[in-house]
Every structure is written in C-alpha cells, then in structure tokens.
C-alpha cells in the first residue's frame, strides 16, 4: 500500500520536484522518514502526529515508512509536513488517493492541525503550472501562489480538516485571489532637492539606461537624498520582471501577506554588510541584497567604508546579471541584474575639493580614502559625478520648489526605456530591456556613430586610456542620451556628454589635488 504525493525542494529559485512516497505495512507501529531530510524534516514527525490527532485521526498501528525521492537530494525546510501528512491520510483512506494526483503540495503543520505559511510558494506554483498540475498550500500562501497562472487550480485551506472536507465535497474551497500591495504612500519627489541640476540630469540618465552611478561629494550635499529619489524616476515593473523579483522575494520569505508590488526594489544595506549578506550564501545559500535588488536599485552609501573584499565581490554579478553561489553542499544561481548606485565623500574629512578648504593630511587624505575602492570596480561605474555642496543662494530660495517634479522626469525616462525595449525586441533579444544590459556583440550595432562622434571617441579613448570595457560603457551611455533625445543615431554631443561623466572618474585621484 503506497501513496504518492508531489512536492518540491528549492535549489535557488528553482523548484525541483520531490515525490513523497508513503508506505504502510505490518510491523511495530512507527513513523519513519527517510530521504536526506534536515532537522526540520525529522521534527515534522511530531507535528504530523499531533496535527492528525487534533484532526480526529490516530496514526494507524502499523509501520509507516515515508520516503522523499530522489533520496540523494538534501531536503531542507518545514514545507514537507503537509505532503507527508496527506500521504499518510491517503494511505489510511482518510482522503482519496487519486485526489492528490494532479497537485503539488507544500505547507507546514501546527500542532492543532492548522497550516502555517511557508516561503517559496510562488516558485512552487510556477513549477507546478509548468507540469500542468495545481497547487495545494496553506491559506496564508494562497494569494502568492495564485499569481503563477490565472487558470491553474489553487487550493489554500486553513487546516487538515478543511482539506478532507474539500475532497469529500462537503465544503469546497474557492480559489484565492492574487493580491497586490497598496502602494504605501508617495515616494520622495525630485522637486524636494534644491539646486544640484547636473546631478539630477545624471540621475535621469542613470534611470533611463539602467546605468551604474557614483556620486562623490562633501557631507550634506544631498547624495543620499538624490539616490532616495531614483525609485520615483524608474518605470513600474513589467509583468516578467515582477515575476522574477517576486520569485526571489518568495524564496527569501519577504513577500508580505503574499502581495506583489509593481514598485522596483530599492535596497540600501549598511556598510557593515558581510559578503554573504550582500551576495547571498549562508547555510541554506539564501539570496543576498544584490538578488533582492534584482530589477531595482542597490544603493551603497559611504562606499569606501564597505570592506574591500565585499565590494569586489560585486564585480562579477554586475557584468553577468546573476550570481552563482557555490558551497561544498550546494550550488545555486540567483538573478542579480541590479542597478548599482553609490555615494561617497572625496576624502576622510569629507571636504577635499571644496573651494577654500584644505585637508589636514594634505593630498594623502583623498588619495588614501579613494584607494579603498579598487580600480576594476571604479571602471564599472558608467556615470560618475561630483556633487558639490549646495550654495546658500539655492538653499535660501524661498519656498519655491526649484526643479521639475519626479513625474515629469519619469515620463521622459519611460519614453527612453520604451525605445530601448523596442529596439532590443527588433534585434531579437526581447529579454534585454536596458542599454546597460546590452550584450557585448551588440554594442556597436545599437550605437552607430557618425563621423564626428567617431573621431571624438577615438581621440578620447587614446587620451583617457579607456579600457575596452570603458569604451563600451561610454557607447552605452551615449546610446541612452540619444534615446532620451529620441533620435536614431548617436551624435557627437551624446558621446561628448557620456565622456564627460567618464572623465571625472578617470580624474578622480587628481580631484583633491
């Protein structure tokens, strides 16, 4: 007598199918779970026993063997409670065995027989849908799982008894509705920032092309304030992007109440962050900040205060758009196409470069401070700009909100992004959405320069000793600038402006001099 229940095991954001086999046979009454489960799986025995008793069922006086197949794949987490309990109920005849055939089951049991929400129900639902199955998950996960597909069956009961009643037909469960989180309050608006017109322009370019941005300026010049306003310029998430970031959030267990939001993530980890916190890892190879910032913004304030090794670990994901976390016992890939925005002071005392100020330690002050960031990482910033202290005249401007509101800028950004998406779709790469993600072999195709622009870039490349990556990044920024102007070809002015953002970076060590 063997019952089969389908569940999943998570490897990164992928859900690998797991077959729960329950066998009941003669022997001393015992419940044995095999199949490389972790401690949470071993303890599920006690939860299942209590939950079945609370639901009015006693474990049969026979030997019950549960196998989680494939048996050599390590299983982690508490979501195996429900599939095991249902397998036992099926083998006892408390639920019809064929009722579970077309379902993927996951959920944790509490001792009173109710179901506790678990992480990862969205990836599980997507995997179930791909196999043409429905999903059975706790009530608290129903709204999340319902996002996978509007037509797939989703059962989200409160308790074990509700499941039995549903299969008996006495109390049929209805499909939960996918919910979106209400956008909580307005985002900070760009019009709040007084002055800093060039910084606002750079912010707009960064938003339009998804470019990386580094702001250097004295304390109190508004770097953090500007970065906090970047989300208000970014277009809302597309359906596919939304699904991708929700999968990561589901694995990390950060989807509040199963509600998805179309706001782009904005992650601002403190500079004490460890490498595992930023890149991902730990015992269960959890997603890190860069994966939680997928399709959104990763803002690193006080960049040189981060540990150098942690910063340099960002280099690879910045190029590839995903991160492979390899450990002795697991190897998982998380998506990590994030937009890096960083802010820093020019030197330890923070005032280097400000007119009428000289560091106590002289030029060494700025040089030592900036040397904490490695050249290869600096090379990966498309836009670098100085954010000078705000002048008293700008600050004193009475009550008038100086610049454009975010909505106006966001409309231009959205138009530029639309042009980019259409161009990549026409070139047969609909998965690429921004200029910054252009594959290397397509850079020259998308940014066709005219004669004057080509000459300028050639001269600049020699004079500034641009790296090959730097050269490509200049082209990508120039392409974004042309998109913002809604013109087909990339002209001399676009290249010139792109080079200007590059140049400040090359000159950075001399900045304080």
């Amino acid at each position, binding site marked *: 007598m063997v019952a089969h229940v389908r569940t999943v095991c998570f490897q990164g954001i992928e859900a690998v199918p797991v077959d729960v086999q329950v066998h009941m046979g*003669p022997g001393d*009454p*015992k419940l044995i779970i095999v199949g490389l489960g972790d401690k949470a799986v071993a303890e599920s025995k006690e939860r299942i026993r209590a939950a079945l008793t609370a639901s009015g069922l006693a474990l049969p*006086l026979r030997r019950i063997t549960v196998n989680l197949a494939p048996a050599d794949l390590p299983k982690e987490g508490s979501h195996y409670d429900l599939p095991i309990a249902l397998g036992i109920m099926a083998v006892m005849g408390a639920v019809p065995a064929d009722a579970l055939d077309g379902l993927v089951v996951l959920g944790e049991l509490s001792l009173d027989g109710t179901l506790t929400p678990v992480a990862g129900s969205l990836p599980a639902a997507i995997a179930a849908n791909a196999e043409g199955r429905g999903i059975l998950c706790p009530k608290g996960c129903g709204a999340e799982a319902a996002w996978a597909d509007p037509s797939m069956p989703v059962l989200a009961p409160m308790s074990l008894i509700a499941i039995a009643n549903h299969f008996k037909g006495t109390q049929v469960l209805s499909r939960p509705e996918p919910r979106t989180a209400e956008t909580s309050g307005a985002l900070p608006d760009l019009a709040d920032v007084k002055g800093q017109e060039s910084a606002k322009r750079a912010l707009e370019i960064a938003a339009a092309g998804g470019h990386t941005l580094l702001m250097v300026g004295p304390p109190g010049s508004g770097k953090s304030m500007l970065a906090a306003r970047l989300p208000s310029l970014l277009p809302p998430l597309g359906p596919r992007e939304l699904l991708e970031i929700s999968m990561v959030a589901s694995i990390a267990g950060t989807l509040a109440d199963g509600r998805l939001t179309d706001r782009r993530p904005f992650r601002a980890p403190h500079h004490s962050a460890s490498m595992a916190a930023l890149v991902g890892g730990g015992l269960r190879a959890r997603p890190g900040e860069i994966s939680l910032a997928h399709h959104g913004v990763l803002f690193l304030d006080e960049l040189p205060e981060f540990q150098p090794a942690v910063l340099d670990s960002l280099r690879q994901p910045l190029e590839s758009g995903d991160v492979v976390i390899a450990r002795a016992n697991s190897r998982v890939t998380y998506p990590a196409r994030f937009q890096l925005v960083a802010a820093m002071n020019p030197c330890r005392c923070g005032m280097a470069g400000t007119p009428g100020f000289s560091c106590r330690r002289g030029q060494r002050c700025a040089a030592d401070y900036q040397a904490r960031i490695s050249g290869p990482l600096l090379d990966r910033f498309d836009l670098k700009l100085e954010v000078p202290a705000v002048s008293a005249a700008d600050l004193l401007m009475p009550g008038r909100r100086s610049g454009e509101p975010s909505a106006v800028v966001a409309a231009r950004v959205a138009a530029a992004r639309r042009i980019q998406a259409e161009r990549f779709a026409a070139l047969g790469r609909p998965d690429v959405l921004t200029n910054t993600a252009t594959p290397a072999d397509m850079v020259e195709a998308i940014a066709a320069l005219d004669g004057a622009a080509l000459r300028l870039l050639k001269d600049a490349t020699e004079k500034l000793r641009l790296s090959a990556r730097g050269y490509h990044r200049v082209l990508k920024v120039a392409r974004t600038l042309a998109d913002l102007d809604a013109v087909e070809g990339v002209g001399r002015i676009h290249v010139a402006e792109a080079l200007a953002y590059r140049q400040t970076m090359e000159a950075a060590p001399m900045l304080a001099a």
Partner: protein
Amino acid sequence: MTRDRDARHAAYRKGLRAEWVAAWLLRLKGFRVLAARFKTPAGEIDLIARRGQLIVFVEVKARGDEARAVEAVTPAAKARIARAASLYLNRHPRLATLDRRFDIVFVAPGRLPVHRPGAFESPLD
C-alpha cells in the same frame, strides 16, 4: 529465610491474581486471550490478546498508585516486551500482518482495573 520466601510467594500470587483480573477485563472488552505468561529467552509477556485485526501485548502491573506503576515499566522492560512480541509473531506468522499495540493494565486491590491502550511504543527499530 522463610519469611523472604513467603514474601516472594505472596508477590507471585498477587501477580497471578492481577493477571487473572486483567485477562477478564480484556475478555469483557471483546478480546480473545491467546497466551498468558508467554516466556521467551528475550523476556516474558503477561498477556497476548486479539480482537479482529488487532493484536495487543499487555503488561500487567499490580500497583496501587498509577503514577508509580507507570514508572515500573522501564525502557528496558519495554524493549524486553517488544523483543518477546516479535519472537511470538515469528512463531505465529499468520498473526504477523495484524495491527500491533502495546498496552498496560493496572490492577489495584479495592479499585477497578485500569486499561491503557497503546501505553507505549516499541523502542526497537
């Protein structure tokens, strides 16, 4: 010496009487007693009874205080009973497919006997 033997004899008779009471309690509950004082090299089972698809192995305890009686069934005693039970089932293969249960019956003088179905589980694998 004589007194010691008398005391042991009294305890033995008390045990016999308790088993007799327990056996009748099970019969009243519809069980058929298959064996009493079943002795094996691994240990002894006080009563073995069957009802339908269920076979029970019963440990009888003649103690006044139920809490103390529970303590009297030590893990070693449970293992002994479980081993003896599997030996019994080996000798009676036709019974091996029945549901198995380990019960305790407490018998105290001047009180009704108490039956604890499924009082413990087999500590063996």
